[in-house]
């Protein structure tokens, strides 16, 4: 019986360790997910850091790719948020400058963060942003308006099957997340509507 108990204990311990390991694996799925999306170029995630200005890249005049620009303020965020130009035809390899316009319609300061997404997802890795407002937070005071620049190019080796790329920005209210610690307390007191939203 003693031997039984010993082997029971050993196996139980191993299984408990497996349980703990799988709990850890659950959390490891989070970075794993990002790595997978990154390497496979799925999920429509475009580069989150600026790409370098391409050197000696020749625009492919023979191809035209239609690029659509979309903008969504999230939830009840009191901003207007629109592309300056909703649609343009782009040659692969051509460096394009455009902008989005955002206006804070409320009377208090709100920090916005735009998160980009490209559709079709497999086109995302060919869409390179040299400069983008989505790399930074965008604070706007009450009633303030800002033009937010975007410089991008499409890589010339983009698959023939892709004729249209849709670039969509969702704008999130990150006033609370971006607040400095001492600022948080003030915000909670001053800004009860924001608290209710969260």
């Amino acid at each position, binding site marked *: 019986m003693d031997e*039984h108990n010993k*082997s*029971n204990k050993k*196996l*139980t311990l191993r*299984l*408990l360790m*497996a*349980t*703990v*390991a*799988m*709990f850890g*694996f*659950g*959390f490891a*799925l*989070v970075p794993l*997910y990002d790595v997978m999306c990154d390497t*496979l170029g*799925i*999920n*429509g995630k475009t580069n989150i850091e600026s790409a370098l200005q391409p050197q000696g890249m020749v625009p492919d005049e023979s191809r035209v790719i239609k690029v659509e620009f979309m903008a969504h303020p*999230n939830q009840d965020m009191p901003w207007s948020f629109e592309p300056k130009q909703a649609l343009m035809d782009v040659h692969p390899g051509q460096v394009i400058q455009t902008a989005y316009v955002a206006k804070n319609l409320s009377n208090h300061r709100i920090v916005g*963060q735009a*998160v980009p997404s490209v*559709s*079709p*997802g*497999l086109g995302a890795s060919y869409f390179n942003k040299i400069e983008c407002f989505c790399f930074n937070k965008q604070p706007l005071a009450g009633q303030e308006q800002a033009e937010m620049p975007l410089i991008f190019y499409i890589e010339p080796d983009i698959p023939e099957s892709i004729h249209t790329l849709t670039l969509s920005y*969702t704008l*999130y*209210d*990150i006033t*609370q*997340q971006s607040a400095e610690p001492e600022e948080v307390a003030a915000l909670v007191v001053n800004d009860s509507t924001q608290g209710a939203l*969260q």
Partner: protein
Amino acid sequence: MKTSKPESENIKSAPVADADLSRANSAIAVEDDHHHEAPKGIARWIYSTNHKDIGTLYLWFSFIMFLTGGAMAMVIRAELFQPGLQLVEPQFFNQMTTVHGLVMVFGAVMPAFTGLANWMIPMMIGAPDMALPRMNNLSFWILPFAFLILLSSLFTAGGAPDFGWTFYAPLSTQYSPDSTALFVFSVHIMGISSIMGAINVIVTIVNMRAPGMTWFKMPMFVWTWLITAFLLIAVMPVLAGAVTMVLTDKYFGTSFFDAAGGGDPVMFQHIFWFFGHPEVYIMILPSFGIISAIIPAFSGKKLFGYHSMVYATCSIALLSFLVWAHHMFTTGMPVFAELFFMYCTMLIAVPTGVKVFNWVATMWRGAMTFETPMLFAIAFIILFTIGGFSGLMLAIVPADFQYHDTYFVVAHFHYVLVSGAVFSIMAAAYYWLPKWTGNMYDHKLSLLHFWCSVISVNVLFFPMHFLGLAGMPRRIPDYAIQFADVNQIVSIGGFAFGLSQLIFLWVVIKCIRGGEKATDKPWEHAEGLEWTLPSPAPHHTFSTPPKID
């Protein structure tokens, strides 16, 4: 707890039966004399470390939860009896669908299987008890508290969780009621309970088999449970991780699933279904074991293709880790991912088909008799296969775009879970009740229960296929007027199915209280060590391991 009295009377009579037996069969030496007198009344159940007592507790708990979750389904069907809003507010309706799902999955089906494992696995492998009896006691007794916490959230100010049992972010993180914390902690406790149960099952099966009980002599029920237990250990911790992330996202400002903070709500679905898909096999593999025990017993033949059954179970378990994203075809995955998950999902039909054909081959030219457990087992095979086929339809990517989130999905998973898992549990209860209670149950009543159940379950779930194909979305309290007639039929089937289960309660109570004495082996062709024991099975069995040839 009302039934604890007649139960303990049975146990008191047990030593007499023991004495007879030890004279008749020296392989089973019962050492009741060396044991302390078990505490009486409620204390016996609270302190018990006996696998049969704990099995009984699990089974009663599961049945109470089955009725609780069933009552919520009745609210759902009553509201859907007519279009428009009649009885409940939409928000309460959503709470009902959510808690119904949670209670049925974690409170009814999973504990029922754990109860069956506790009762039967030691008796099937010739072990005196589960390997870790104290942990066994703990793993049961934290369960009522988990559900107390979950159900109490129904009475909190913001109401119970209303985001569906799958608790997709951001529904569960940004738009959820304050009771989400209660939900998270109750799921943690349920998870801990089933992980402890799974560890116990594995250690018991690996270390406690009687000498001569080699791997390929184990009954299919033991095999399927062993594999299920590994699945539980692999995925329940991931579920714990998912609810923890929801908790910190909602209350502590993390952004696992919040795009504004750099997270991704679609990632929630990946993590959830990494748990969720193996989970559906956790709820069906033990059924396969039960059916594999019952079909041969009433066909007068050995199980056809025992080895292929074992391998099929293993391959289903392995494949279950490669198919999770078929729940998310409409999230905008790239085509190659959709194809990969589609083909893997369809591949599962192969080992499942092996099982179904093996059962049919076992019945083929057998001397079949149709006692109640066999009727439930045959109904299981037919109805589970229907559920399997609708699953195949859902696996086809372009078709899934139409079926996704419609009543077709509801019909599919209720066919595999109600007329699948629940029917197999009923079959198991009717098969082993004589062994548990020492009495035969009322045959006529059990037949009434079967026919009422099998007819009403089809009236309840079959028309849902048509509702789904016609485009009725799931999880809504109100619907377009053209769905009214079919919904009325579905609701009538629902009420009938709910009431039919009270017959089952009646049968079980009547059987515990008395009835024709059961022989040690009431089913002529039943096989397995449990039938070498007297009926009712004495409190302690196989204190000396049996001889296995």
